[in-house]
């Protein structure tokens, strides 16, 4: 091969952005079409630098908008090769039209989404508004809680998305700044081990196979549109989670690092549980342990796979729990919150039907403190003791001014 390999230490000190950039290099991406936006920019800058230092071979196309970035990725992917890019927030919002087109055309593009709030007011910090905006777009969505996760989940994403039984694009999420700009120890894979895990790109319906011309992006109306969307949904619902689980299993055999579709922490005998995503999972785990010392049987469920939503796996993880809090890091715009709604859906038909309350937190990068979580677990225990939800169903936590609670 004409490019140079990079010698990595077993543990490198990387932030989430650089970890993701290294994963893209090791997957030997053929084309990156990208546009800068805080806080995800260093991922594509990383690829560009690796390219100029001959640590990767491919084409970096610095386009004129995020919409064009995903449009270029779609063209490149349809041409037949490995494609990735990164974005955040407003850039993600600008891409939304093309996200639906990428998934509808069954193109296995990998998008690193460094989660950030959506304007207005303009804000560069991390919340999950952009992640939520993409939740109906037909993309697989994996959520990293740390730089290590941002690194590892990229390999999982390529392996699952490019599987010919799947052929769906995938997002790897990490929290803006909290993960993307916070350097931590990251256990690395050697270039060969990483590449072999993902494997060579196997083209399908590639435009550049001149002997077999293909038509991508057709018109369908009421005669066929529904069947296309239904087939796509069917594959998402029936094929993706088993493939993710198989990839997690292979990855554990290779590295010893275990990922789960739903991450349980102290859930075996938990009476009260917090369900959350991103960096909040780690904070919640720490507080749960402290609550246990105080005699409250607290647990944490972290969502690792946001789409397809692990409906039964989450219900299973929450079995026996009496009071549950759904933590939504996105302004719900007149509804209880995505996670609250999804959990309600999971639990409504369960025999125990536990108590569920929702908390909106951390908008625009506002810290979620241990104190918030202590209070939250205490409220959940009060619900258990009273046998009913003692608070309003939706509470805003960590916001200044008079207490905001609804429903």
């Amino acid at each position: 091969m004409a490019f140079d390999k990079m010698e990595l230490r077993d543990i490198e000190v990387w932030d989430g952005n650089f970890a993701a950039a290294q994963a893209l290099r090791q997957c030997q991406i053929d084309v990156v079409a990208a546009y800068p936006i805080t806080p995800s920019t260093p991922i594509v800058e990383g690829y560009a630098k690796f390219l100029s230092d001959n640590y990767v071979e491919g084409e970096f196309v610095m386009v004129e908008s995020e919409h064009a970035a995903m449009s270029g990725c779609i063209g490149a992917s349809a041409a037949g090769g490995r494609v990735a890019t990164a974005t955040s927030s407003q850039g993600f919002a600008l891409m939304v039209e093309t996200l639906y087109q990428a998934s509808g055309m069954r193109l296995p593009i990998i998008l690193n989404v460094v989660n950030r709030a959506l304007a207005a007011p303009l804000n560069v910090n991390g919340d999950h508004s952009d992640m939520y905006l993409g939740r109906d777009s037909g993309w697989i969505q994996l959520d990293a809680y740390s730089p290590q996760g941002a690194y590892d989940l990229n390999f999982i994403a390529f392996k699952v998305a490019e599987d010919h039984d799947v052929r769906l694009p995938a997002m790897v999420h990490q929290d803006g700044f909290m993960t993307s700009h916070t350097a931590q120890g990251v256990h690395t894979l050697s270039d060969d081990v990483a590449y072999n895990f993902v494997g060579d790109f196997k083209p399908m319906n590639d435009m550049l196979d001149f002997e077999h011309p293909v038509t991508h992006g057709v018109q369908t109306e009421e005669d066929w549109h529904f069947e296309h969307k239904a087939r796509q949904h069917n594959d998402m619902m029936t094929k993706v989670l088993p493939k993710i689980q198989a990839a997690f299993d292979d990855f554990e055999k290779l590295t010893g690092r275990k990922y789960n579709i739903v991450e349980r922490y102290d859930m075996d005998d938990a009476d009260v549980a917090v369900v959350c995503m991103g960096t909040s999972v780690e904070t919640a785990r720490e507080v749960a342990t402290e609550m246990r010392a105080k005699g409250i049987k607290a647990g944490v469920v972290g969502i690792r796979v946001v789409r397809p939503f692990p409906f039964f796996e989450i219900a299973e993880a929450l079995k026996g729990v009496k009071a549950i809090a759904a933590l939504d890091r996105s302004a719900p715009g007149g509804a209880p919150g995505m996670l609250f709604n999804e959990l309600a859906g999971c639990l409504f038909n369960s025999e125990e039907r536990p108590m569920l309350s929702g908390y909106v937190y951390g908008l625009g990068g506002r810290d979620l403190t241990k104190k918030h979580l202590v209070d939250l677990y205490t409220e959940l225990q009060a619900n258990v003791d009273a046998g009913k939800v003692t608070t309003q169903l939706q509470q805003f936590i960590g916001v200044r001014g008079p207490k905001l609670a609804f429903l």
Partner: protein
Amino acid sequence: MSEMKKIKNLKEFSTSADRFEGANLLCPGCAHSIIVREVLNATNDDLILSASTGCLEVCTAVYPYTSWDASWIHIGFENGSTAVAGAEAMYKALKTKKRLKQPDRNPKFVSFAGDGASYDIGFQWISGCMERGHNMMHVVLDNEVYANTGGQRSSSTPIGSSATTSPAGRVSYGEKKNKKDMVAIMASHGIPYSAQVAPNKWKDMVKKIQHGMEVDGPVFINAVSPCTTEWKFDPKDTMLLTDLSTDSLVFPLYEIIDGHELNITYRPKEKDIVPVEEYLAAQGRFKHLFKDQYKYLIKEWQERVDANWAYLNRREEARV
């Protein structure tokens, strides 16, 4: 090396192997399919094509059918150019990495889009593609209106035309703004080749397309495409309308090399130049201009066309 097609006459052209099938849903008399065939027929090389959302796209790739016997992609309204640019980037990447399935081929990358998808909603994407130097050609099928959505004005719609969003009425002569000079804007990107073409002058067009396919870098082509539905003329008169457009000099045919060197490629003899009035009179969209109160607009039209022709001639003479 490129392999360009040698076609001597229209008979040969009509029987030439085709990668754009006649089986499509375009209106009878639509010039789009004529232009597309002339572009595709310019080369024997492999083609990677795109269409932006619009008449051409909705009429040629209705599942489970396709009119395209070459790889073709449609994403959306604004980004057909960038789809091809992405494919071109992948071609370069796979060539470097020695992963092309047929490494000896010399594909040409061409995006087609209407004037709405080029002058308006796709403007930024095309500008990006031209500026970045992709080895691709963008062809505008310029019918001066949003035909696919039913006749709304675009920034290519000329003054005095009645469009559904700038309709002529008791107190209005229709569109108030003049057509945007897209060829000049694209040439200003410093691209190696840009040109205006018309399907009636097919030899001129094929020559320009072949030149565009041989140069290294982005190429912009603006093709006049008379629209029987929105320009309101009989479907059998498409070529007549195209002749009127080029012979009245409303659509002068020229090329701009490296962003500055302008050559006029069709110069009707003085006695053959058709008054603009005849061009306007042949189309229902300009019918209201022949009322007494709007006749001054026809005079202004002629003055504008004359001034533009003089300008192009000065540009050509000046060689700058």
